[in-house]
């Protein structure tokens, strides 16, 4: 077996997950805006062509310009950016996904093409078309946008809940996985809500609509917020579908994850209550500032949700198949034997910055095994997390990494590598002095080895399952 080493960049004080999470929020928000926006425009077109709301046509064309400027440009490019970022952070993960799902992605691409064609046809010519043709273009546009969600949703939900999928089995077993339906519905309703909130902003800002027209249109748009009432149920269905350990992180097991879950739920609840009670039941109206604020809250909810979705996969990027640090569970034993970085062809970037070869080795081990989730002294920094630990505690807790925190993968290196990592941590903790002694006591290594064996090579969720 030859392990596929990739060069690993240092993201500075930022955690790699933060980078992808941050970008993901933008992209998901824009994409959901495009999806919900398509549906909303169909609704507005229908309102106008059936004479129910003649001003809807005017509002619709204003909304569409906005959608094209924002979503066609930034939405499409942040999508490519998601891909590129995933490559930066975990080429093996994206490689595995592409290998398994390339025809799904290729299918999604045909829908992108339709989305662009229908969207631009409407954009350029919609003004001069009869109602039927306008409706057709808008329907094709929103259908294409929604289907792009349908396809990508299967791939992303597979990462957390592969369900009955096996590498040799059917691709559809992975695609229609246990969290496919709850997350598809959830995202569809989220998309409708975002579109409705943006509509409130756009309608308010529309110069050619009278106050009465604005009011009427805003209450029409608010109908798209009604499905939000189902989102708590869908959220629970989703939580029920994901693995118990992931569910536990989101609901108290990890402070950060629980916080994000709370933020997402709280922001959604606020928007939902305002929408249901204020807009739909009491028929209060909403001005541009409030609408913008609600959009902001929806963005926060999307953000919280995306962080949780990215976060609860730990210690995997593909559940059961690939750990977050791009090591397959089946490779851990071999890497423990030969060493995790023994064959890594990529040198350290500033080798002279380290006091000796042992610490240099530690830096390579850190880069390979821990760098996806930790920095040394920035976000989720090891020096802060283990700042007060004794050397013994460091050794024990890292050797039993998956037991220290169940959302970490098992340590996949030798005892010597582990000791080198411990030396790196304590050298950094000591303020990076120029001289640093080597630590090469045989009993230490023997003890680490014993701890490694006690911890075993399986992740915590599987160990518990076995007991």
């Amino acid at each position, binding site marked *: 077996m030859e392990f596929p080493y990739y060069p690993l960049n240092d993201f500075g004080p930022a955690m790699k997950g933060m980078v992808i999470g941050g970008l993901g929020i933008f992209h998901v928000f824009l994409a959901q805006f495009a999806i919900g926006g398509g549906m909303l425009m169909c609704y507005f077109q229908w309102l106008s062509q059936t004479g129910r709301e003649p001003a809807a046509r005017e509002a619709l064309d204003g909304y569409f310009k906005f959608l094209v400027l924002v979503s066609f440009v930034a939405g499409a490019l942040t999508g490519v950016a998601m891909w*590129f970022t995933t490559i930066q952070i975990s080429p093996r993960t994206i490689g595995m996904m*592409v290998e398994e799902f390339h025809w799904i992605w290729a299918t999604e691409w045909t829908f*992108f093409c339709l989305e662009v064609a229908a969207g631009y046809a409407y954009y350029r010519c919609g003004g001069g078309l009869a109602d039927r043709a306008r409706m057709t273009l808008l329907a094709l546009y929103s259908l294409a946008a929604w289907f792009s969600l349908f396809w990508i949703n299967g791939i992303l939900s597979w990462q957390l809940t592969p369900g009955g999928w096996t590498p040799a089995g059917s691709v559809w077993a992975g695609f229609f996985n246990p969290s496919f339906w709850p997350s598809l519905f959830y995202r569809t309703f989220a998309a409708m809500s975002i579109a409705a909130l943006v509509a409130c902003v756009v309608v308010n800002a529309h110069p050619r609509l009278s106050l009465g027209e604005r009011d009427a249109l805003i209450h029409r748009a608010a109908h798209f917020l009604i499905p939000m009432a189902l989102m708590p149920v869908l959220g629970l269905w989703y939580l029920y579908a994901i693995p118990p350990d992931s569910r536990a992180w989101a609901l108290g097991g990890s402070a950060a994850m629980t916080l994000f879950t709370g933020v997402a739920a709280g922001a959604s609840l606020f928007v939902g209550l305002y929408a249901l009670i204020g807009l739909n039941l009491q028929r209060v109206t909403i001005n541009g500032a409030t609408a913008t604020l609600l959009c902001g809250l929806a963005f926060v909810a999307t953000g919280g949700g995306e962080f949780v979705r990215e976060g609860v996969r730990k210690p995997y990027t593909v559940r059961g198949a690939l750990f977050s640090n791009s090591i397959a569970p089946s490779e851990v034993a071999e890497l423990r034997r030969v060493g995790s970085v023994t064959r890594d062809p990529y040198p350290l970037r500033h080798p002279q910055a380290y006091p000796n070869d042992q610490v240099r080795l530690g830096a390579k081990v850190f880069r390979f095994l821990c760098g996806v989730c930790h920095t040394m002294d920035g976000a989720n920094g090891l020096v802060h997390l283990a700042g007060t630990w004794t050397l013994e505690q460091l050794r024990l807790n890292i050797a039993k990494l998956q037991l220290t925190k169940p959302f970490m993968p098992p340590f996949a290196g030798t005892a010597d590598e582990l000791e080198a990592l411990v030396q790196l941590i304590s050298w950094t903790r000591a303020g990076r002095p120029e001289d640093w002694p080597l630590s090469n006591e045989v009993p230490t290594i023997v003890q680490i080895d014993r701890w490694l064996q006690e911890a075993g090579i399986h992740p915590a969720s599987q160990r518990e399952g076995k007991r």
Partner: protein
Amino acid sequence: MSAPFPLGFPAPTAFYLSFYVLTLLIHVMFMSYVLAGTGYLVAVHFLPGGFAGSRHRAPLAEILRDWMPFALSGAITAGVAPLLFVQILYQRAFYTANILLFHRWMAILPVLIAGFYLLYLLKIRWVTEGPPARGGFIALAAWLCFGFTGYSWTENHLLSLQPAAWPVFFGADSLFFWTGALLPRLGLWAAGTIPVMALLLGWQFRLTYEGTPYVPPYEIRRLALVALAGLLLSALAGVGYGSFLSPAAREFVQGAAGEPYLGLALIGWLIQAAIWLTVWKRASLRPGLLGAASLGAFLSVLGMTVLREGVRITSLPAGRLYALHERASQVGGLPVFLFFLVLNAALVGWCIVLARKAKSSPGPGEDLRDLLDRR
């Protein structure tokens, strides 16, 4: 390899290579329009007599400006499919080059977003009715954005082909990958996009002005000259790039697998050169001429794209790649893709049919016709 590309490869490899080449061709079409088109816009704004302060003297520029955001959307969307196939074909090499270039590579995304909005800016009245230099500088900024993007793809491509250079490049923490082949290759691409853009623009021009009594001959001549200059430059860059090819690559180009395509590319080049000379002489863009030039351009671009691919795949370790393609070819989903490919292509066609029915809309053509009639 004793059969023309892609027949000499194992079936799964040949299969993915074909999809890759076909989808890349679509990308090249749109991307050429964007890159060479913004270049054209820069030139007409700055060259004496090019823009001459009034937009109806430059109907070609007007069309370009009008369609440019759509073309960029097209280039991006069409880029997604080859982006998918390149990951199956050359997984590790492609990813490694991406990661090694890191910030440099990721920069193409904000740069493209900026370029996109600059294209919209080119269409607003403050620019179209302002002094030519205003539009010129905006077009230049956009052109730099797209040039940077093209440069990045070339740099990434060349870096992906040199596994031996990877660890050194990483250790040195370099931002740019420099190699002698970079400039001629980039020149080849930059020049090669010009005739493709001229052709697409020629068609648009033809369709826009169909049936109008007044067709400005100086615009047609200028278009022909631009195309001819592009052809000439691409020939020069092609010869330059050829001198950097490795022996293995040369073997491919001159062997049974590559030679037919080299021939196609040359024949296509000759056809295009002959047609654009005719266009220049007669100041006419008859559909027959445009059709022949289209055939020529297709042959040239197809030939060059295949050669580009052959050169790459013969320079990477074959065994591991073939195994990967074999594995990938066993996953399901292909019938679903083909079904939706056909269905969605038909629906795209329907969108175009619907859009063409919109007679009363103030489309760009109508707009221009009014202007010209008034003259």
